[in-house]
């Protein structure tokens, strides 16, 4: 070798600089790049080549850095996102194009996407959707649905400037810059260099008793700094998210309730952990239940929950039994869905350090204040003694609401008074994080001879796993939503959350509603067929309109826009009908089909207070600061909240400097969940902007019509042709300050579930066009048309991004995703859609306004995915006559249904 580096060192060119770093030459290149060479822009998502986040160029060719021995780059040229974005002309064009198209949402896959795209552009290959997909097919994205990434690469040489403007303008993400330059810092990226590493010892069995050996002797023999067990918890060994349901221990005591449950943690240097002997624990496997079937007679998981029932939900209106008996047409069916994994590309990560009698935790989270309060209970500290510093979040979708990695580092840092870090492995993430609830649903729907719904009955059993997590929310939400956005005068819906020995099922985009929509929307198709009615027309005839009571008796006098969504689909439906008929007339072995489905979702907590607070201030020097604590997990709250605030204040977004999130400096904007940030935190931002505006105008003694300008000379107010400069009063840190809160007006539900559970509902309807290979049962999606009533699109570009990403998750739910405990604990056995699995998506925005939303905006996050799976399933049935009752509709199930003629 001519380019030998000193013993124990590796020399290579990293982003144009020749470097020599001390490293183990068989270590994964990704580890050496991140931990030794400081290239934190190289992301690690799976350590198996399944996600492509760690893609770097070695001598110009994209490779997964996690699969390469570091020593193999000795003497070679390595390029990463940050180097490319700074220097490479193709990458610099891609940065601008990714911003224009909002091709980065959370940003965790962006390095892999951009590096792969640079290789494609350098190759000179003609750009087409196919060549882009082939080049980027090795990188998984869970946020965007890929469409905007494809568009951005195709438009890499475009020169259109970025849009500017306030509410309603499709401006680029305000936090997009670091995501595209490689400077963004996610959960693991901020771990202090001197931090000790924590590794969790987990149950290898679904249920097991366990006994530790000599822990102190083991610790000493292996050079560990600390071993943590339940005995080391200063506060309470339990956490949870719903009051009264805090049932999950940090470390199991006596028995583990699911495979992967923690019993202990070891803390030491990375070298000590790598060399550590087998942890001294003896397991005693015990009988376990993995599905609700038989759970009532199985060993009880929690003492207070008889027959393993966590809780039930119930909504009743009118007389469902009588209505169904008297209905001209009744359809019924049983449908089921499996565990769905969130599949964010960034695994859970946290680091902590102790500052005197306080503990500070950096982590990727959706719920900083809930994390703070939960940790305070575990640590036996006052909430104010815990500081949560949210990092950028590489995808959340509900699972990063719950505490995961945070307690381990908090305990380690607290006891050792040294920084501690942990990042979950992919297997650890999939096997222990919360999941979408598996569902087993029976539903019956009746219509009169004119095709009007007269009644519906729903009974859903949800596997909530070993601990409650957000299970009560699912149990409560489903009966309210299982009617779909349709007039259903007689209705009875029951739900039950059942404990089993599996990872806890919790929050996942839609909280049970995507599952119930699978049953209800498929039955709607069956009912339309029975009636001989067009499926879109049947839905249009029955959808809620302004003034109609919902199944909880709530009446919206304005803003119920599902009729407009269905109307918006009509021309696309007619076009697709004709195209499908023409294709099917001339093809035998492949058949096309179209499906439609609708969905609705109430924004915010169900009949519970969930306020947001936003704070803003002007420094004595005239700088405008916005304390924005609504965590942006890629959905865009940093941008949307700022747009709303700036609009209310009457300044351009460029005048605003964002601060936070940080529980020490940003007030509680609640959790990023339940499609609540645009609506609730957005309203707080609107109120805050308006309050600050009033203060400023008062100081200048000008009218409400005055224009505010933050300039280098200070704040200038222009009113009726005169401009005055505002004299700011002294003050620290702010000369002017406003803090405003908003809490949605809801009412409690009575025993029949009647009341106003949400102030705002968003609605949506989608069409799926697809083709089925009859002999193999494989599905090729051709197009999704998505009509969404968002009330008012604060940022249409970000709205499209949410819709496309939600649709992609719906596609995964429909066609390929199922977590099988103990079996699909990686990203090659648990499949999520790739860039080649998401077809073109046409977004049709409906803006029906809203009585409560800021500028009429509703929430959107969950709505996007609710109609997708049933639309896909209805299209499969249309194409083949085969009705899939049990998800996912994998090729084998579709083929079997075709062969058996199931309908």
């Amino acid at each position, binding site marked *: 070798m001519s380019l030998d580096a000193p013993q124990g060192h590796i020399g290579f060119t990293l982003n144009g600089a020749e470097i020599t770093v001390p490293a183990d030459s068989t270590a994964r290149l990704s580890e050496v790049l991140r931990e030794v060479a400081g290239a934190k822009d190289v992301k690690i998502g799976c350590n198996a*080549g399944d996600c492509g986040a760690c893609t770097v160029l070695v001598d110009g060719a*994209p*490779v997964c850095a996690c699969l390469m021995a570091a020593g193999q780059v000795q003497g070679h040229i390595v390029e990463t996102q940050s180097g490319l974005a700074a220097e490479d002309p193709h990458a610099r064009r891609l940065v601008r194009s990714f911003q224009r198209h909002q091709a980065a949402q959370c940003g965790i896959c962006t390095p892999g996407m951009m590096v792969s795209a640079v290789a494609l552009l350098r190759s000179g290959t003609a750009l087409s959707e196919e060549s882009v997909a082939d080049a980027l*097919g090795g990188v998984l994205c869970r946020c965007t649905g890929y469409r905007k990434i494809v568009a951005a690469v195709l438009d890499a040489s475009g020169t259109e400037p970025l849009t500017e403007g306030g509410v309603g303008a499709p401006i680029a993400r305000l936090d997009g810059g670091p995501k595209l330059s490689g400077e963004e810092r996610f959960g693991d990226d901020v771990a202090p260099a001197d931090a000790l590493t924590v590794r969790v010892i987990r149950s290898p069995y679904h249920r097991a008793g366990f006994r530790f050996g000599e822990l102190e002797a083991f610790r000493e023999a292996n050079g560990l700094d600390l071993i943590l067990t339940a005995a080391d918890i200063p506060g309470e060994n339990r956490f949870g998210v719903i009051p009264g349901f805090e049932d999950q221990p940090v470390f199991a005591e006596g028995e583990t309730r699911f495979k992967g449950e923690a019993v202990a943690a070891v803390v030491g240097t990375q070298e000590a952990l790598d060399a550590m002997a087998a942890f001294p624990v003896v397991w005693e496997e015990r009988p376990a239940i993995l599905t609700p079937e038989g759970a009532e007679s199985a060993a009880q998981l929690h003492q207070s929950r008889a027959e393993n029932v966590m809780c039930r939900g119930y909504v009743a209106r009118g007389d469902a039994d009588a209505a169904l008996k008297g209905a001209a047409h009744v359809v019924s069916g049983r449908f089921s869905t499996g565990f769905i994994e969130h599949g964010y590309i960034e695994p859970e990560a946290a680091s902590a350090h102790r500052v005197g009698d306080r503990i500070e935790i950096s982590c990727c989270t959706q719920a900083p204040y809930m994390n703070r309060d939960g940790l305070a209970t575990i640590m036996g500290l006052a909430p104010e003694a815990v500081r949560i510093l949210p990092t950028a979040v590489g995808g959340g979708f509900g699972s990063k609401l719950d505490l995961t990695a945070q307690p381990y580092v908090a305990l380690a840092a607290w006891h050792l008074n040294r920084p501690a870090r942990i990042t979950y492995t992919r297997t650890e993430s999939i096997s222990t994080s919360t999941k979408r609830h598996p569902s087993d649903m029976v539903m019956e729907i009746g219509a009169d001879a004119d095709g009007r719904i007269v009644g519906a009955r729903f009974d859903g059993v949800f596997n909530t796993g070993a601990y409650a997590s957000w299970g009560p929310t699912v149990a409560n939400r489903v009966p309210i939503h299982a009617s779909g956005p349709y007039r259903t005068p007689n209705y009875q819906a029951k739900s039950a959350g059942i404990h089993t020995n599996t990872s806890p099922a919790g929050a996942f985009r839609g909280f049970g509603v995507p599952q119930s929509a699978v049953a209800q929307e498929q039955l709607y198709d069956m009912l339309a067929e029975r009636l001989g009615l067009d499926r879109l027309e049947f839905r249009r005839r029955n959808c809620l309109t302004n003034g109609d009571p919902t199944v909880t008796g709530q009446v919206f006098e304005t803003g119920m826009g599902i009729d407009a969504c269905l109307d918006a689909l009509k021309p696309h439906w007619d076009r697709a009908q004709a195209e499908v008929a023409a294709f099917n007339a001339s093809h035998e072995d492949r058949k096309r089909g179209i499906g439609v489905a609708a969905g609705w979702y109430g924004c915010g907590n169900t009949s519970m207070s969930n306020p947001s607070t936003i704070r803003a201030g002007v420094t004595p020097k005239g700088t405008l600061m916005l304390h924005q604590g609504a965590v942006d997990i890629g959905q865009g709250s940093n941008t949307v909240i700022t747009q709303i605030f700036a609009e209310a204040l009457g300044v351009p977004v460029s005048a605003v400097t964002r601060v936070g999130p940080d529980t020490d400096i940003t007030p509680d904007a609640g959790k990023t969940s339940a499609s609540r940030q645009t609506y609730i935190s957005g309203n707080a931002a609107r109120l805050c902007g308006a309050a600050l505006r009033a203060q400023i105008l008062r100081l200048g003694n000008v009218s409400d019509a005055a224009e505010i300008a933050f300039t280098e000379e200070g704040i200038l107010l222009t009113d009726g042709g005169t401009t005055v400069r505002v004299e700011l009063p002294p003050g620290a840190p702010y000369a002017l300050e406003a803090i405003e809160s908003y809490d949605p007006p809801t009412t409690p539900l009575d025993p029949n579930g009647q009341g106003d559970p949400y102030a705002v509902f968003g609605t949506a309807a989608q069409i799926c066009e697809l083709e089925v290979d009859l002999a193999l049962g494989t599905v090729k999606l051709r197009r999704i048309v998505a009509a969404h009533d968002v009330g008012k699109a604060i940022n249409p570009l970000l709205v499209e991004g949410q819709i496309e990403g939600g649709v992609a998750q719906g596609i995964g739910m429909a066609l390929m995703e199922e977590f099988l405990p103990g079996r699909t604990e990686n990203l090659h*056995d648990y499949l999520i859609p790739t860039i080649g699995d998401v077809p073109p998506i046409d977004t049709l925005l409906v803006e029906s306004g809203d009585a409560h939303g800021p500028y009429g905006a509703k929430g959107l996050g969950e709505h996007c995915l609710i109609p997708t799976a049933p639309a896909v399933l209805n299209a499969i049935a249309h194409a083949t006559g085969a009705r899939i009752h049990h998800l996912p509709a994998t090729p084998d199930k579709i083929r079997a249904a075709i062969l058996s003629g199931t309908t």
Partner: protein
Amino acid sequence: MPLHRPDTLDAALALMGRGGAQALGGGTDLYPALRDGVPPAELVDLTGVAELRGMTREAEGWRIGGATTWSALLRADLPPLFDGLKAAAREVGSVQIQNAGTVAGNLCNASPAADGVPALLALDAEVGLASAAGTRRLPLAEFITGPRATLLVPGEILTEIYIPGAKGCGAFLKLGARKYLVISIAMVAAVIEVEAGRIARARIAVGACAPVARRLPDLEAGLRGKSVAELSEILRDYPFPELAPIGDVRAPAAYRDDAVRTLVARAITTAMEQEAAHVA
């Protein structure tokens, strides 16, 4: 130094012959197999060994150096006989995997779902093995003996793959539940030689439907002299005695049984159509 990077075969064999070291190609199987464990103490990187690189036309056929990456294979100028192998190369993981993963690595890893194996079996590939004790040459069909099991002995390196020259055109079909980055439910490679519109010689191999990928010799014999029109009847009646599919997280056994019939028919048809196109 735990990672050795020899540039000659002799040096590589000497290192492997000492025992204890593991061979490293593109790392695309070795590192995932560690799960999240630490790398082996000693690795011999074979990607820099001159004798293991490149593809050459020889008197009897072609030689593919063991350390040839799938991307290099895709860039090579090869006749239609190799169309199936190239199609398989495009299905190996992703571009990232194809840029690093090697042909020899795919064979030595001996996954029942290895994308490269059916196409190479259909080409009657042989593997060249070398150790300090000498060299030997084995049919690929004998080399892989079971899931993750081969005849490679400690200290031995798979140095090259030989493909005998032949007429005909290859095709490869992979069935999975998504477009990219997918492990096969089933896959079929076919190499078909056509004379006067009829099958003169058919070589067909199926992957992911038995502990190791298998050729279908009885079917191949039955196809001789047949036309496309007769395919469906022959396949309908063929019992596929060579296969023993299992059910796993990707699909139940019955589906593999069913789908493989369609895949075989389509692979043959594709190969014949491509052959016709090349001739035209």
